[in-house]
C-alpha cells in the first residue's frame, strides 16, 4: 500500500496545468486535492468490472483504481454506493467545434475548370488535405453538453468537407479554454467520396472522385521521390506529412467501402471506414478488406404504411433494410470486425441510447457495445494510453451512472472530464415523484406528483361537494423543490378552501415525508404533512407494452438484399439439356433435336443422344437453346454517375470502379436472356472513361461480377452529345474541334511516353539528379490504346466523324475497335471494313437527334453484308431485356438470315469485346453461358425459361414466380411489424420510394 501512495506523489508533482502559459486575473485558485469515488461498481475497461471499488483521481488524471486504496488526507470522497463508473465514451467521427466549410453563395451554372481555392494548394478544390481541424477548433459548450449527456468525454473532430479533408483533432468535451480541451491535433487523416463545398466541376461523378484520389496519390509519390521537382504544393506536402496517420474514409455505403479499399490497396494504404449501417449486406467482402469500421446507430424509421396503396411506394429493399438495420452492429461484431460507434449520423442525438439498446436487443453484446465506444475508438487513433479505459495515469474521463450503462432505466448522473465534474442528472436531487396523502390539519387530499425531477407536475383529487353537487375534479398543484425545501401552491375551490393554499416545508426521510407550515387565503397559518403512499399503477402498464417484437434471430438477408435477391448464390451444376433446337453459332449452325452437356461451368459436349452420369436432365423438347445474350452497350449496374462530363478527355476514370451489384435491372435483364454486358461510360466527352465487362451474376459482389482476364475497353464519343455537354464553354463545340481534341490527346500521350522512355534510358546510378516524369493516369490510359492493350468503343452517328476517327487512329498507329450506335455506318461500311472496325448499333432507333435523321433500320444489314462485325446493343435498361427481339429486326429490315441475326446479340458482341474465345457460341470448352427459350429466340412469342451463367442457373421462370410470391409475403410480414412498431410508439416516416436513376449515354450527373 505504501508503494501506491509513494507513486501518487511522484505523479502529482509532475502534473502541470493544461493552461500553464496563461495569465491569471486575480488570486490563483489551484486545487490539487484528491478525489475518491468509493463503493462503486467500476467498469475499468470493456472486459473488466470491479465491484465495491474505488477510483482515485487528481489533477485530471487517474491515480489508482482498485478494490481498496488508502486515501491521502487531502481527499474529497464521494460515496458511489449502488452506482456504476465507466470510462467516458469516445466518438471518432465528429465535427464538434468545427465551423462548417463555407459554401459559395452563388450557384455555379457554368463550368469551373480551375479551383477557387487560391494559394499554393492542390489544383482541385475538393482536395484539401492541408485543412487542420486543430486550427479550426473552437469550444462549443452547447454542442459539447449534448454529447456529455450521452456519456461522451472525447471526440475526434474534423471538417466534413471535400474529398480529402485534412486532419482531425482529438478534444475532450470539457467546458474550458481550448488549450485545456484539445489533447492532440493532426491525429488522423480524413477522406470521403463527397465533393462537399467544392464548386469546381471536376470530378462530376463517383468514378471521377476515385480517379482523382488515385492521381493525387501518384502526385504525392512523385513529389516525395523527386526532391528536385520545382512545384511547391502545400496540399501534397500535407499528404506526405500525414501519410503515417490513421486514415479514415467516409465511404457511406457498403459498396463504397469496397471501392475505397481497392484504391487503398493500390497504394498500400489501409483505411478505417466510416460506414452507413448497411454493412451486413456485404459482410463477407467488408471483412476481407481488413479495414476497421466506424458505424452509426442511425436506423431508418418505420414507414407509414397504414394505407396499403401507399405502401406500394416503399420498395422491398427499404422495407427489408428497416427490419435488418438494427442487426447490423451485431452482425459486424459476430464477424469479428473491429468497429467503433459514432453519433455522427444522428440528427437527434437524444435517440442514441435508445437505438443502441435496439442494436443490443438485435444481437450486439453489451461488451462489444462498450468496446466500440471506448477501447476500439481509442485504439483506432493510437490513444489508448490516455483514453478508453480507467487505469492509472490515464485521463480522468469517466461517467457515473445509476445502473448498467445500457439498461433501459439507466441515468447518467455525472460526466467527469479531465477531473472536472459535469452534472448531468444530480444523484443528490431528491426525487419527490410519487403518490402522497396530503394532510392540512384535518383535511386530507390525495396528491400525485409526476413529471421530470426538474419539472414536476402535481395534482390533487377533490372529494367533496361544489354548489351542492358531488365534486371529484382534479386540481393541479405547483411544486417547487430546492435541495430539501419544498413549496406547494394550489387552489382547491372546495368546501375547505375557496382561495389559494400555500405551503412551505422540508423533505425528509428519503422523500417519504414532507412537512411544514402553510397559509390559507384567510391568512390563517396551518400545519401540514405529506406522507408517501404506494407506487402508482401507471408505471407498470407502460412496461407491458414494450418487450416482444425484437428478437435475436437475424431476419433473412438476401443477395442482393432486395426483391428477387437470392437466399444463397446459385452454384454451377452439371446439366444435360436434351432434344432442344440448339443455335450453336458455329459451323454446325442451328441443330435440331440436339443435346448439350454443361459441366464445371463449361460446355462439355454438343451433339445427339449424349449422356453424362449424374447430370441433371433438362427436357429441351420444343425449346431452343442459344448462347447468352451479350450487350455491347449498357449503362445498368452503375453507381453515382455514368458520365465524367467535366473535361473533354477523362481517360483516367473507370466504370469498373463504380459497378453497382444492387441494380434490379441486372435481374430483369437475366430474365431477358442477357448473360454479359459492357458497362460503358457515357458520351459526354470525346475521350470518356474505361468500361467494365461483367457477367450478370445477380447476387454477387461487383468484383465477382467482373469478367477476369479481359482486354481493357474505353468509351470515346463523337457528335452532338460531345458538343453540347459541359455547357457552351467547353472545347469542343463542333465536329471540327473534336478531331483536334483527339490529335492533341494522342500527341500528348506519345510525348508523355517519350519522356518515360528517355527517363528509362538513363542508367539507374545517374538518375539521382533527374526528376522522373510524373505518372499521369490519363496519359497512361491513352498509351494503352496506342499499345493495343485497351480498345475503343466509340459512340458515333454521322459518316463524316466516323471517317475522321479512323483517320486519327490510322495516323496514330492504332485501330478503332468498335463504333457503337454508328447509325450511319451503312454509309461508310466499306471504309469500316477496310479499317477493321466493328459496328454495334441500334436496330431501329432514330429521329431523337438531328444527327440521327439519316439513321435507318437497315443499317445493321448493310454493314453485315459488307463484312463488318455487327452487334445490336441496348444503351437502355428496358431494351436490354429483349435484345433477342431487336436482333429479329435485322431479319425484318434487310433480310439477314435468322442464324446470323441472333449472332448480332451473342457471338458478334463477344467478338467486339474480345470475349469470343470463351463466350458467344455453344462450343465445347466455352463458358456455359446459355439461355433456354420457349420458342425460336427471334420470335416475339419466345420467353426465357432459364438463363445460365458459368453453368449456374441465375434465372429460372418457375423459381422467379416462386420468389415473387415469397417477396410479397416477406414484405407483408415486415409491414405488419412496422404497424405494430408504430402502435408501440415508434416514429414513422411518410412513404417514399426514390427510384434508381436509369442511365443513358447522355445522362449528366449522379
Amino acid at each position, binding site marked *: 500500500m505504501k508503494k501506491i501512495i509513494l507513486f501518487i506523489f511522484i505523479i502529482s508533482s509532475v502534473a502541470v496545468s493544461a493552461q500553464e502559459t496563461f495569465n491569471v486575473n486575480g488570486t490563483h485558485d489551484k486545487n490539487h486535492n484528491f478525489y475518491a469515488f468509493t463503493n462503486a461498481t467500476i467498469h475499468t475497461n470493456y472486459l473488466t468490472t470491479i465491484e465495491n471499488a474505488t477510483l482515485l483521481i487528481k489533477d485530471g488524471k487517474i491515480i489508482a483504481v482498485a478494490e481498496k486504496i488508502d486515501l491521502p488526507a487531502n481527499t474529497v470522497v464521494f460515496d458511489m454506493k449502488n452506482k456504476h463508473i465507466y470510462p467516458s465514451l469516445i466518438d471518432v467521427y465528429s465535427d464538434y467545434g468545427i465551423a462548417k466549410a463555407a459554401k459559395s453563395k452563388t450557384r455555379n451554372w457554368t463550368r469551373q475548370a480551375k479551383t477557387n481555392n487560391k494559394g499554393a494548394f492542390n489544383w482541385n478544390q475538393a482536395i484539401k488535405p492541408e485543412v487542420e481541424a486543430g486550427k479550426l477548433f473552437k469550444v462549443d459548450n452547447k454542442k459539447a453538453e449534448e454529447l456529455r449527456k450521452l456519456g461522451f468525454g472525447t471526440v475526434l473532430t474534423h471538417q466534413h468537407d471535400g474529398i480529402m479533408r485534412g486532419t482531425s483533432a482529438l478534444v475532450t468535451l470539457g467546458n474550458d479554454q481550448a488549450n485545456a480541451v484539445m489533447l492532440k491535433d493532426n491525429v488522423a487523416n480524413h477522406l470521403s467520396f463527397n465533393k462537399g463545398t467544392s464548386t469546381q466541376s471536376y470530378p462530376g461523378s463517383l468514378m471521377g472522385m476515385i480517379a482523382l484520389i488515385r492521381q493525387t496519390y501518384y502526385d504525392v509519390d512523385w513529389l516525395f521521390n523527386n526532391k528536385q521537382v520545382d512545384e511547391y504544393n502545400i496540399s501534397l506536402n500535407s499528404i506526405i506529412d500525414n501519410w503515417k496517420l490513421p486514415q479514415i474514409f467516409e465511404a457511406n455505403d457498403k459498396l463504397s467501402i469496397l471501392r475505397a479499399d481497392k484504391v487503398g490497396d493500390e497504394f498500400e494504404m489501409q483505411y478505417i471506414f466510416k460506414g452507413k449501417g448497411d454493412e451486413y449486406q456485404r459482410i463477407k467482402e467488408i471483412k476481407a478488406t481488413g479495414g476497421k469500421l466506424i458505424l452509426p446507430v442511425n436506423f431508418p424509421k418505420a414507414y407509414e404504411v397504414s394505407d396499403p*396503396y*401507399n405502401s*406500394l*411506394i416503399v*420498395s*422491398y*429493399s427499404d422495407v427489408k433494410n428497416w427490419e435488418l438495420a438494427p442487426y447490423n452492429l451485431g452482425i459486424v461484431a459476430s464477424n469479428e470486425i473491429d468497429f467503433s460507434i459514432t453519433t455522427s449520423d444522428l440528427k437527434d442525438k437524444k435517440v442514441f441510447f435508445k437505438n443502441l439498446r435496439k442494436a443490443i436487443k438485435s444481437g450486439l453484446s453489451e461488451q462489444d457495445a462498450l468496446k466500440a465506444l471506448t477501447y476500439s475508438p481509442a485504439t483506432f487513433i493510437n490513444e489508448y494510453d490516455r483514453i478508453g479505459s480507467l487505469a492509472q495515469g490515464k485521463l480522468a474521463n469517466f461517467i457515473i451512472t445509476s445502473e448498467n450503462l445500457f439498461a433501459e432505466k439507466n441515468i447518467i448522473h455525472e460526466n467527469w472530464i479531465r477531473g472536472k465534474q459535469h452534472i448531468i442528472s444530480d444523484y443528490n436531487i431528491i426525487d419527490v415523484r410519487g403518490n402522497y396523502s396530503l394532510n392540512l390539519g384535518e383535511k386530507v387530499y390525495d396528491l400525485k406528483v409526476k413529471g421530470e425531477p426538474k419539472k414536476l407536475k402535481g395534482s390533487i383529487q377533490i372529494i367533496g361537494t361544489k354548489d351542492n353537487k358531488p365534486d371529484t375534479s382534479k386540481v393541479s398543484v405547483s411544486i417547487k423543490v430546492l435541495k430539501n425545501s419544498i413549496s406547494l401552491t394550489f387552489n382547491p375551490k372546495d368546501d375547505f378552501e375557496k382561495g389559494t393554499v400555500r405551503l412551505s416545508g422540508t423533505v425528509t426521510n428519503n422523500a417519504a415525508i414532507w412537512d411544514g407550515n402553510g397559509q390559507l387565503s384567510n391568512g390563517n397559518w396551518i400545519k401540514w404533512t405529506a406522507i408517501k403512499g404506494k407506487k402508482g399503477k401507471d408505471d407498470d402498464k407502460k412496461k407491458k407494452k414494450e418487450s416482444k417484437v425484437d428478437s435475436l434471430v437475424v431476419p433473412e438477408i438476401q443477395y442482393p438484399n*432486395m*426483391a*428477387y435477391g437470392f437466399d444463397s448464390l446459385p452454384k454451377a451444376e452439371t446439366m444435360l439439356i436434351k432434344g432442344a433446337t440448339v443455335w450453336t453459332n458455329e459451323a454446325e449452325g442451328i441443330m435440331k433435336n440436339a443435346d448439350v452437356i454443361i459441366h464445371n461451368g463449361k460446355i462439355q459436349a454438343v451433339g445427339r443422344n449424349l449422356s453424362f452420369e449424374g447430370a441433371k436432365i433438362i427436357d429441351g423438347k420444343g425449346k431452343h437453346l442459344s448462347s447468352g445474350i451479350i450487350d455491347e452497350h449498357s449503362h445498368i449496374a452503375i453507381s453515382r454517375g455514368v458520365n465524367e462530363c467535366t473535361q473533354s478527355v477523362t481517360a483516367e476514370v473507370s466504370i469498373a470502379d463504380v459497378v453497382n451489384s444492387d441494380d*434490379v*435491372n441486372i*435481374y*430483369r435483364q437475366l*430474365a431477358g436472356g442477357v448473360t454479359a454486358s459492357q458497362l460503358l461510360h457515357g458520351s459526354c466527352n470525346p475521350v470518356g472513361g474505361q468500361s467494365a465487362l461483367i457477367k450478370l451474376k445477380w447476387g454477387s459482389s461487383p468484383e465477382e461480377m467482373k469478367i477476369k482476364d479481359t482486354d481493357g475497353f474505353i468509351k470515346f464519343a463523337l457528335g452532338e452529345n460531345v458538343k453540347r455537354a459541359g455547357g457552351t464553354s467547353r472545347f469542343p463545340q463542333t465536329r471540327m474541334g473534336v478531331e483536334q481534341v483527339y490529335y492533341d490527346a494522342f500527341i500528348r500521350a506519345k510525348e508523355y511516353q517519350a519522356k518515360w522512355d528517355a527517363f528509362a534510358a538513363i542508367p539507374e546510378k545517374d538518375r539521382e539528379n533527374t526528376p522522373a516524369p510524373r505518372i499521369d493516369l490519363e496519359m497512361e490510359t491513352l498509351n494503352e490504346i496506342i499499345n493495343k492493350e485497351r480498345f475503343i468503343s466509340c459512340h458515333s452517328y454521322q459518316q463524316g466523324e466516323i471517317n475522321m476517327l479512323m483517320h486519327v487512329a490510322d495516323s496514330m498507329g492504332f485501330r478503332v475497335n468498335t463504333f457503337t450506335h454508328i447509325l450511319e455506318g*451503312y*454509309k461508310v*461500311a*466499306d471504309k469500316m471494313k477496310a479499317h477493321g472496325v466493328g459496328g454495334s448499333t441500334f436496330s*431501329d*432507333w*432514330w*429521329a*431523337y*437527334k*438531328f444527327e440521327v*435523321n439519316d*439513321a435507318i433500320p*437497315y443499317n445493321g444489314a*448493310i454493314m453485315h453484308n459488307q463484312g463488318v462485325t455487327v452487334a445490336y446493343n441496348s444503351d437502355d*435498361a*428496358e*431494351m436490354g*431485356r*429483349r435484345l433477342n*427481339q431487336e436482333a*429479329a*429486326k435485322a*431479319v*425484318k429490315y*434487310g433480310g439477314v438470315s*435468322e442464324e446470323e441475326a441472333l449472332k448480332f446479340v451473342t457471338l458478334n458482341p463477344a467478338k467486339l469485346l474480345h470475349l469470343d474465345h470463351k463466350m458467344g457460341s455453344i462450343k465445347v470448352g466455352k463458358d456455359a453461358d446459355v439461355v433456354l427459350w420457349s420458342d*425460336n429466340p*427471334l*420470335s*416475339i*412469342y*419466345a*420467353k426465357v425459361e432459364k438463363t445460365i451463367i458459368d453453368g449456374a442457373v441465375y434465372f429460372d421462370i418457375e423459381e*422467379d414466380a416462386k420468389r*415473387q410470391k415469397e*417477396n*410479397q409475403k416477406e414484405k407483408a410480414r415486415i409491414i405488419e411489424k412496422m404497424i405494430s412498431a408504430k402502435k408501440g410508439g415508434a416514429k414513422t416516416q*411518410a*412513404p*417514399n*420510394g*426514390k*427510384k434508381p436513376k*436509369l442511365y443513358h449515354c447522355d445522362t449528366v450527373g449522379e
Partner: protein
Amino acid sequence: MKNILLILLTGSLLSVNAQIETPAPKQTKKIMLLNGVAHLGNGKIIQNSAIAFEDGKLTIVANAAAIKIDFSQFDTVINIPNKHVYPGIIAPNSTLGLTEIGAVRMTHDYSEYGMFKPHVRSIIAYNTESKITTTVRSNGILLAQATPRSGAISGTSSIVQFDAWNWEDAVYKKDDGVHLNWSGMFSRWNGKKNKEYDKSVTKLNDFFTNALAYSKTADYPEKNLRFEAMRGVFNGEKTLYIHANFVKEITEAINFSKKHKVSKMVIVGGYDAWMVADMLKENKVAVILKRVHSLPQRQEDDVYLPYKLPHMLFDAGVLFCLENSGDMEAMGTRNLPFYAGTAAAYGLDKEEALKLITLNTAKILGIDKTTGSLEVGKDATLFISNGDALDMRSNDVIGAFIQGRHIDIDNHQKKLYRKYSGKYTDQ
C-alpha cells in the same frame, strides 16, 4: 389488274421512286383481295378470305370458299395466298406529326405554355409531311390520335389518318377529346409525397366546376375560350382522357369525372388499372394501357408485369387498348404491333391481342363505327403483310389502303437503304 398485283407485292422495294411519298387518289376501282389470311381485328380470323371494297368501304369480308364471287364485278382482283390482311393499326395518345427530332426543340409542337389549355388543338400543328409518319405506316399503323402533352390540361386531340395533303384532309375525327394529366401523389423524381397534390386537385375542381356552370349557358356573352373548349366534355361530344398510372390516382380520377358529370372518360396509362378493374367496369371506363415494352415501376413487381398487364386486364373484363407514349414515342410507334405480339406471348390469344391495336382502340376513341376492323360497311383501311404482323421477324408490309386509297408505303429510310445498297453493289 396485273399492274397492281406487281406493285403490291414487290412495289415497295423495287420502285425507284425518288419522290417524297405522295398522297394517293380516291379509290375509283373496285378491288378484291383474294385468298389471304384475314385477321378481322374483332377477334375473328378467316384463313382463306375474300375482301372487297369500293368507294373506300368494305363490301365483302368473307370466307372465299363459302361465297360465290362474280369476278367480273371487280376491276382488280389481287391474289394473296399465304399473305395476311389486317385492319389498319391505330396509335392512340401519340405525338406523331407533332414532333420531328427529339433533341431539336423547334421541331416540337406538342407542348403549349400554361396549365389549363383545353382550347389548344393538336390538329393545327399536325404535320402531314412528317418523315416519321411514313416510316410508321409502312409497318401497318395507319391512324393516330395526335395528342398534346404537358400541363394539367394539355389540350384537345384529334384523330388523323396517314394519307393526306394537309391537316384538313388528315382529320378522321376532329377534336375527339380533352387530355388531363392527373397530378401525381408522389414525386416522379424523388418518390416523396407531392405536397402540392391537394392544391392542384383543388384547382382542377375549381376549373371543372366553373367550366360545367359555363356550359349550361348556350351563348355566353363574354367568351372564355378554355370553357368553350370544355363544353364537349359535358355534352358528350368529347372524351375526357385522364392520364394516370398509380392506383389511387386512377380512383381519384374516376370519382372526379363522376362528380363533374363528364360524359365519357378514359384512363390513359393505367399501370395499376388491374387493381381497380371492378371499379373501371362499373363506371364503364376504358383504359389506354401504358407501353407494353417498359420496365416494371416497382422493384418487387413481376419482372414481366408490363408484358402481362394486357392479359390481366383482359381477364378482368376491362375494355382497353395499347399505346406508345414515353421515350422516343413518335418514332417508336412503328413497334406498336409488337406490343400486341408481346401481349400474346404472355397469355393473350393472338387475335385478342390484335384487337388491342385495332378494334378496341377504335371503340375507345369512338371511331369504331367506321374503322378498326375488317367488317362490311367500314372503311377499307387495311394492310397486307407477308407474315404475322405482330412478330418482328415476319411483319413485312407489302401493301396498304386507307379508306380504299392505295397508299405509298415507301419512306425516307427505304430510300436510303436502296441508295446505299446501290453504292456497294455498283462499286
